[in-house]
């Protein structure tokens, strides 16, 4: 039972991170029809900037603000200088250019912070544990879940209740029409890109105390994020949320329960060998099944 609760919470924690990443990626894709492989680099930069600022100032709150502001600025600069030119080009060009950007980002980080991993402490206030369902759980991990929920609510309010959100929805539906109605669509694109970049940076900072911050750390999460937005339905925020929760749950549960289940069927050596192998494949198998039956994803954008 205690393992079960802990695993559920862990899966929510991974889901929260995946949502922070996929919300930005899917918004950018939905509106600009643009896939940014360098999205994981923003995640990495968020972690590095946050770790550095936290070490210099000793304040985690300032680190959060710094990480978000830095990644948003970086996002705006990249969008204004290079990425904007790629919106009208075909997907192959987008993928290759952002891949080149990703290589540059990794090396820039290696140049500035050095090749060895950077570590950052969990903030003192969240160092302990919290009791949930009669079960001790690390307070910091719980805080990530809370942060995820706050972002979900914030995005929901932004998109469904504000003028900017209305424009974003309209832009996703028909960008040309929105532009013809006198909205500065280029500015809107930049705002959306910066929003996504800031969320990725926040995600990177939040995970930084739990992992080693190093060049290339954004790539594994980028791949998971791609799975999330494909499963959820490309361009849909709602899909990103459910997709993140589903992928978080399956990835976490598979690693633990596959092992336990297989150990009961096979002998120890076999179970230990194939358990992780199957667990690591499970989300991709899920993705294949989803695509086979619903190529548009589980929660596609509704038009009209």
């Amino acid at each position, binding site marked *: 039972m205690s393992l079960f609760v802990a695993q559920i919470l862990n899966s929510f924690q991974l889901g929260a991170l995946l949502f922070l990443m996929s919300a930005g990626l899917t918004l950018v894709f939905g509106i600009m029809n643009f896939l940014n492989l360098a999205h994981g680099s923003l995640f990495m930069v968020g972690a590095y900037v946050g770790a550095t600022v936290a070490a210099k100032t000793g304040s985690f709150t300032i680190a959060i603000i710094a990480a978000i502001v830095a990644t948003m600025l970086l996002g705006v600069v990249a969008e204004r200088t290079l990425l904007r030119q790629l919106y009208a080009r075909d997907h192959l*060009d987008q993928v*290759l250019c952002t891949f080149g950007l990703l290589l540059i980002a990794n090396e820039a980080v290696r140049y500035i912070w050095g090749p060895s991993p950077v570590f950052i402490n969990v903030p003192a206030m969240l160092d302990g544990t919290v009791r949930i369902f009669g079960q001790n759980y690390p307070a910091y991990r719980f805080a990530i879940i809370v942060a995820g929920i706050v972002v979900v609510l914030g995005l929901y309010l932004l998109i469904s209740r504000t003028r900017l959100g209305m424009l974003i929805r309209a832009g996703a539906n028909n960008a040309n029409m929105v532009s013809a109605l006198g909205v500065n669509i280029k500015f809107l694109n930049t705002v959306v890109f910066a929003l996504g970049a800031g969320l990725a940076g926040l995600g990177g900072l939040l995970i930084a105390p739990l992992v080693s911050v190093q060049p290339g750390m954004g790539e594994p999460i980028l791949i998971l994020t791609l799975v999330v*937005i494909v499963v959820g339905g490309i361009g849909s925020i709602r899909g990103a949320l459910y997709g993140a929760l589903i992928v978080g749950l399956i990835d976490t549960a598979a690693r633990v329960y596959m092992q336990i289940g297989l150990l009961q069927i096979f002998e120890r050596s076999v179970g230990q060998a194939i358990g*992780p*192998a199957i667990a*690591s494949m499970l989300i*991709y198998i899920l993705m294949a099944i989803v695509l086979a039956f619903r190529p548009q994803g589980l929660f596609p954008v509704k038009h009209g």
Partner: protein
Amino acid sequence: MAKLEIRELKTWIAGLVILLFAAVPIVSILTDQAFYMAQYSRIMIYALAAVALNLILGFGGMVSLGHALYIGIGAYGAGMLDFHGVTNGWLQLLAALGVGGLFATAIGAVVVRLKGMTFIMITLAFAQMGYFLAVTLRTYGGEDGRAISARSQMYLLDFSNPVVLYYAIFACLMATLWWVDRVITSRFGMAIRGSKSNERRMLALGFPTFRYKLAAYVISAQICVVAGFLLANLTLYASPSYMQWMVSAELIIMVILGGMFTVFGPVIGALVFLLLEEWLSNFHSASFPAFGELVNEHWLAVLGAFVIVVVLTARNGVYGYVGKRGRTP
């Protein structure tokens, strides 16, 4: 008349590159530099994979960002069977092709119905699946991979002799080029190219495009399996790094760099790209040592910038450029 000259120019370039490949072992032996033979073996292996990828990418419009998976399967076919004491190369190759065929058919059945961005993302995700699978295989070295005890025994071909291995790779590349050159003008090739430009029309004409595209995908994947098998024999190593998505992206870059609408382009792309990689990673500057060191250490960033410039400016690639310029003088 002008068109003929361009075609001749292209043939000349292709012929010169093939001559270069053919002559490398001779030069290598005469100058006693075994390094060149290993380097050009590697170039030809990647050229082989890039030509295979171009069959579906350039001619079929299927941008696979996951072909490194099949290179990995080929390499692990040699590596895993070697670990279990099976040194017969033909058996290793057969096993690798069998597994590769299963993977390619299953993955292909899911992906060839998809278009554009989804296709790219899904092929990438499936390749990563293979990568993580290989990482979890602790028996075969996990993340680090595993050294292969000896080159595969091919009976009539003695792979332990680097010259024989070199010309085996050369022969594979030539055979593939010849086959691709023929197939793209055949009924099969035309059906693939047709479904790239207008799939709905092809369906209306009665072509089962799904089957054609799937077949092309599987063939392209299987050639990459062969490339992976040869790569494992060259390096005597099988590791998950062969299936990193970096490798898949590099293959696409080779195709674009050389010219994705040409049969021979990817070979030139692989040659230029890998020589550039070699040059950058060993870069040194006599007059500006600090600059040389910087480039040497962070050569991947220079490569990244190079990729961006190529994509933004030279869309038709080096080899494609020759023809393009001639056609509109």
